[in-house]
């Protein structure tokens, strides 16, 4: 049971949310409203299938075109503003979840990358991400996605520069922090 929960804890969490919502639905309109809720969800899901298929294909193809070894090699060598900008580009291009980009960021940290470069890389991964874009576009629509993208476009490099300026001197301590 424990290992099952550990492996499937996001599904479990979502199931708990569904149960709570179903209880609320039941208290308002009995079984009928529960049925309506599930039906509504499945209906939206089915209408979104053409979009989802395209989104998954796009994300998969980008993943196979961009090699992570290439990005790691490319980012380990640059510093300063140029390094921060390259880190943004690398972060935006690299596909995959936190279990993919944090190990890479960790490798960059131990191979000598600066604080600003690392923060820019992680922030760009989360705000510029090319492989996440298809999902956002498909599920939230173009209007919000384009505006969200425009607004947060400058944030990864600016945050990198700000953090480097404020805390750049701590990088040695941060590196020792991980080695401990």
């Amino acid at each position, binding site marked *: 049971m424990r290992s099952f929960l550990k492996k499937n804890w996001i*599904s479990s969490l979502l199931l708990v949310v569904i149960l709570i919502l179903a209880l609320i639905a039941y208290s308002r309109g009995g079984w009928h409203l529960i049925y309506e809720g599930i039906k509504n969800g499945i209906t939206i899901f089915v209408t979104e299938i053409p979009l989802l298929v395209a989104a998954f294909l796009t994300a998969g193809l980008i993943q196979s075109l961009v090699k992570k070894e290439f990005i790691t090699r490319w980012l380990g060598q640059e510093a300063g503003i140029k390094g921060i900008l390259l880190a943004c580009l690398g972060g935006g291009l690299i596909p995959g979840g936190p279990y993919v980009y944090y190990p890479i960021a960790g490798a960059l940290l131990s191979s000598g990358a600066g604080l600003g470069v690392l923060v820019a890389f992680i922030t760009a991964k989360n705000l510029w991400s090319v492989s996440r874009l298809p*999902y*956002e576009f498909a599920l939230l629509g173009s209007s*919000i996605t384009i505006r969200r993208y425009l*607004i947060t476009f400058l944030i990864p490099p600016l945050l990198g520069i700000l953090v480097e300026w404020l805390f750049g001197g701590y990088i040695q301590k941060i590196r020792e922090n991980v080695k401990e």
Partner: protein
Amino acid sequence: MSTSTIILWIITLILLIFSWKKGADSIKRGTQLAWSTTKKNGLLIILAFIIAGFVNILSPKDLVTAWIGPDSGWRGIIAAEFFGTLLPGGPYVVFPIIAVLVQAGAGLGPAISLITSWSTQSLLTISFELPFMGWRFTAIRWTIGLLVPLLAGFTAVLLWG
């Protein structure tokens, strides 16, 4: 068929052609990756859509408008940021839920604050960040990052009200 669907399929086709030019192997690997992501997350996606369906049916319009509606101002942007740090899972889980909140009356500023907060401040991601980056790095990045969703939400309100 919506404009988004058409645009996304055009991008897919361009990538397919590009991969095909790079060699048949790229297409095979790409579609395999797409399939494995689908298989791994299929159940999650359906669960997320069922949540979206329930939220839709229960139509908590008053609740959503009061907390993160277009006139909720700073309070709405801050509430959205807080909620965003708690959202679990990948884009295919989170975006359908955010979409329903938008339909239920969330304002543009809070919506953008919510997306940004889930992207950069998610508490669950920290469990990956800590072992690889250490607590010093995580503390610096996360604390300064708290400004980002606020800034993004506020800019959205300034630009598009």
